[in-house]
């Protein structure tokens, strides 16, 4: 639920991965857009860790064909794509987003922002669907067409889906947790806003039968690095993500899951 802010009109706090980010907007219709996409992740009354002012501009104001670019300049992160411009100052914990009133741009800015935050705490966003079964989280990773959404669609009723697109991995103490995210893929629905310790990561490949085989650490790192969402051109951040991936593989077992796409594959999980 949106809260009224004296300064800018409306404040919405969206908590993903246990990290609350406040968005300030003067447009109540944009609050409705945010609510339609992120309502399960709204946290009223929570003190945000970061705050963005959202400056709404007419559609098509920027170079609409431009790919996402993220870089550090004068201590500020700059994020640009064809449909938005954003800056974020980690020191002041404040930022500005300029975009048209649509849910996709803010979704992307939030993804980028979370990757930057996670990199400094040993976590990352992974191209993976994920679900919780019997209190443990299972991640199914792969690039497009690997079967992430298929695994989500095939999940039995006792599985609580965290996402079909981008799994949120945080290191808390000595263990890794997966959190639900509103970052949806083809499934089109946000994940459940819960978290659980990660029991395993499965690297997906479709095949004639279901088979699970362990993946050696070096190979796991190579393949996971290809699937970690990473936008910034910044050497220090690349090093942090690489280190996070290595530490993750040292803790969480990684398997190759070759699967035939029907419900029986879930008999092997959990």
């Amino acid at each position, binding site marked *: 639920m949106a809260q009224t802010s004296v300064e800018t009109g409306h404040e919405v706090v969206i908590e993903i991965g246990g990290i609350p980010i406040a968005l300030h907007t003067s447009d109540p219709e944009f609050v409705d857009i945010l609510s339609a996409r992120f309502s399960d992740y709204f946290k009223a009354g929570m003190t945000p860790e970061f705050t963005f002012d959202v400056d709404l501009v007419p559609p098509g104001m920027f170079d609409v064909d431009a790919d996402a670019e993220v870089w550090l300049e004068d201590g500020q992160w700059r994020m640009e794509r064809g449909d938005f411009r954003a800056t974020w100052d980690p020191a002041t914990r404040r930022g500005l987003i300029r975009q048209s009133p649509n849910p996709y741009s803010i979704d992307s800015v939030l993804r980028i922002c979370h990757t930057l935050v996670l990199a400094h705490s040993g976590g990352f966003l992974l191209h993976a669907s994920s679900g919780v079964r019997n209190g443990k989280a299972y991640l199914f990773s792969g690039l497009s067409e690997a079967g992430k959404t298929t695994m989500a669609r095939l999940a039995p009723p006792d599985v609580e889906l965290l996402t079909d697109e981008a799994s949120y991995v945080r290191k808390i103490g000595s263990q890794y947790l997966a959190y639900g995210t509103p970052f949806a893929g083809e499934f089109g629905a946000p994940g459940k806003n819960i978290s659980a310790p990660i029991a395993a990561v499965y690297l997906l490949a479709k095949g004639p039968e279901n088979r699970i085989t362990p993946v050696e650490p070096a190979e796991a790192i190579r393949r996971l690095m290809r699937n970690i969402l990473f936008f910034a051109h910044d*050497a220090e951040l690349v090093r942090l993500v690489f280190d996070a991936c*290595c530490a993750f593989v040292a803790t969480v077992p990684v398997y190759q899951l070759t699967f035939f796409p029907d419900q029986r594959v879930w008999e092997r999980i959990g």
Partner: protein
Amino acid sequence: MPFADKYVAKATTIASRLLGEETIIMSTLDSTLFSLNPTGSVIWENADGQTLLSRIVDEKVCTEFDITPEQARADAEEFVGQLAEHGILVVSDQPILQ
């Protein structure tokens, strides 16, 4: 001057991790990943900028692997050349301070 008579050091624009006997290296410039086999990993681990490649080969590679000095030196020359080409290993006539 052949690479064997040069000093070698890891570039500062990389991140690396030794996993068992294999090394994974990532360029922080373009996120390219490299894998080194056990022999390459030994050279990599000893590329401190202060030790000649020939000494690394003689004292580390030849003592740990069943390989002739001639073959080890030839392999090391090729290996160092490839890594230097990708900018993840620095080669110099002089000791390298980092």
